[in-house]
């Protein structure tokens, strides 16, 4: 489990050439919009990194984040990175289980006190701690205990970052995010359902190189990857601007690859790197595959009004309300109108003829 060899050596032993390694560092640098001059620094930092101890806590989650990050049809550097980071605790990936697993966690915490990285996926239920426990310990307790001496926390996936699916209305478990509970540690949110693998490694590489987390946006996401919304980087944007939309999934527009705005794409309000970095090593992303963006890296994306309702559509039946307004207004308007007519009729009925003598004010003596 534990291996004190530096990362560079480990990668070499795995058959990753120096050239390949440097190319990876250059890719990371450009992805994070760091200048080429930083590449050697990144290379040196990664090369000599004494794999930081990483404790991975999985709470109310579906394991999709782990799947995304560790899936490799062909070995990817992300995969290797995770294989060789001292992943001292991870439900899915670790060999140990039960008491032994918990003991390993506690040992890692003690040995790397204030230096280990805490990665969390899944949300934390607050309504009843019993909804999600590990070895009898509630998610809340375990999070607070492990976070206390962590160097930094990475909340992976929308569940850990914002509550995700469990948080969706009506939120039966009282699910909350990591930032709702931990207030005194540096936390990076890496949302997505799941997140893009290279975003993780980019954050880690940054941490290893500079000793701190990268610049974050107002929702705690690394700006390098979440600084633009999908809409602004989408290759179908020219169709949006020209007003060419698909209206169903198999119509002419869909076949021609037109904009999917009408089919519920949440691209304009979703910040992620899908449109540029894409998935499966740049193969494609949902819009390219013909399905609108779900907005999965945004808080409460499950409650944004329906995956297939276009953004401007109201989640409420506005037409019906408008009809009520019209009917109500008509009734009130007729009533007011009748009052008007009555008032005028009365004024006319009580009209006293204006005679010559009525044209001048009485002289007050």
């Amino acid at each position, binding site marked *: 489990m534990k291996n004190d060899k530096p990362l560079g050596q480990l990668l070499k032993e795995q058959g990753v050439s120096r050239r390949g390694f440097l190319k990876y560092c250059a890719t990371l640098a450009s992805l994070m919009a760091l200048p080429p001059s930083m590449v050697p620094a990144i290379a040196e930092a990664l090369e000599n990194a004494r794999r930081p101890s990483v404790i991975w806590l999985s709470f109310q989650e579906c394991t999709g984040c782990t799947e995304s990050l560790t899936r490799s049809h062909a070995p990817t550097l992300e995969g290797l990175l995770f294989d060789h980071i001292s992943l001292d605790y991870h439900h899915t990936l670790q060999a140990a289980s039960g008491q032994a697993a918990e003991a390993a966690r506690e040992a890692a915490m003690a040995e790397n006190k204030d230096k280990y990285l805490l990665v969390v996926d899944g949300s934390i239920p607050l309504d009843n701690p019993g909804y999600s426990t590990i070895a009898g310990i509630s998610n809340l307790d375990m999070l607070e205990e492990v976070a206390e001496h962590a160097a930094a926390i990475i909340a992976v996936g929308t569940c850990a970052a914002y509550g995700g699916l469990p948080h969706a209305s009506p939120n039966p478990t009282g699910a909350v995010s990591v930032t709702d509970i931990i207030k005194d540690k540096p936390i990076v949110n890496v949302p997505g359902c799941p997140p893009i693998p290279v975003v993780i490694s980019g954050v880690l590489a940054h941490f290893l190189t500079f000793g701190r987390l990268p610049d974050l946006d*107002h929702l705690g996401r690394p700006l390098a990857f979440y600084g633009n919304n999908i809409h602004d980087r989408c290759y179908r944007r020219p169709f949006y*601007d020209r007003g060419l939309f698909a209206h169903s999934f198999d119509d002419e527009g869909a076949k021609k690859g037109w904009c999917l*705005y009408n089919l519920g794409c949440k691209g304009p309000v979703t910040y992620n790197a899908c449109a540029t970095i894409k998935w499966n090593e740049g193969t494609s992303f949902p819009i390219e595959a013909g399905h609108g963006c779900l907005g999965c890296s*945004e*808080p409460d994306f499950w409650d944004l009004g329906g995956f297939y309702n276009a953004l401007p559509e109201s989640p409420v039946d*506005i037409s019906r309300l408008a009809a009520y307004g*019209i009917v109500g207004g008509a009734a009130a308007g007729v009533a007011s109108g009748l009052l*008007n007519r009555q008032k005028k009729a009365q004024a006319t009925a009580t009209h006293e003829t204006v005679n010559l003598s009525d044209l001048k004010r009485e002289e007050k003596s």
Partner: protein
Amino acid sequence: MNSGELLFWVRGTGLSIAVVIFTFGMLVRLLEIFMLGRRRNLAELRSNGIGAGLRTLIMRSIPPDRNSMRRSMVTVVAGYGFHIGLLVVIFLLAPHIQLFESLFGFGWPAISTPLVDLFAVVALISLIVLLWHRLTHPVVRYLSTPEDYLVWAASFLPLLSGYLAYHHLWLPYEWLLVTHILSVEFMLILFPFTKLAHAFTLFIARWYTGVIAGERGVET
């Protein structure tokens, strides 16, 4: 509240409140006018006025002659700039048409977003010119009440926030979107209680004036 929740609220509850107040209020306004009506004209009329009424309905959008236009050049040009710009932005922008489609059940073709953007800029500049005019021209300043300035702001905000949102300027996009929708809802609520109602009542006014003149054989 995060931006997603707020966005959900403004597009849901917020819009509901605004639409109900708007429809209710405008119906009341219109019926109050119609039900007062106009007594039948017993004079020997040159025409029934209907043709003249329709003509005035449309032609009043244009100054009656060049001299009159010259005397009110700023108001005419900036007025056109604002109204045409506003109408293009509201009715020919793709996301807006999407909203209408969800409300009415039918939409119509949009024009390209950068072109709409140009009209938005024209509308914004026109509004600024009109504000300057309102503050400096003796007649308009004399006539102006606090309501005029409130309505100006209510008309300016949706255009400005929409422009900022589209160009991702200043605040994060979702917040601009929230501001934009809120400002539109604010404007909708103001409609029945301010001169904004003219958007509907002017057709009644023009009609009546056209008929009254047409009965006397005068085209206006």
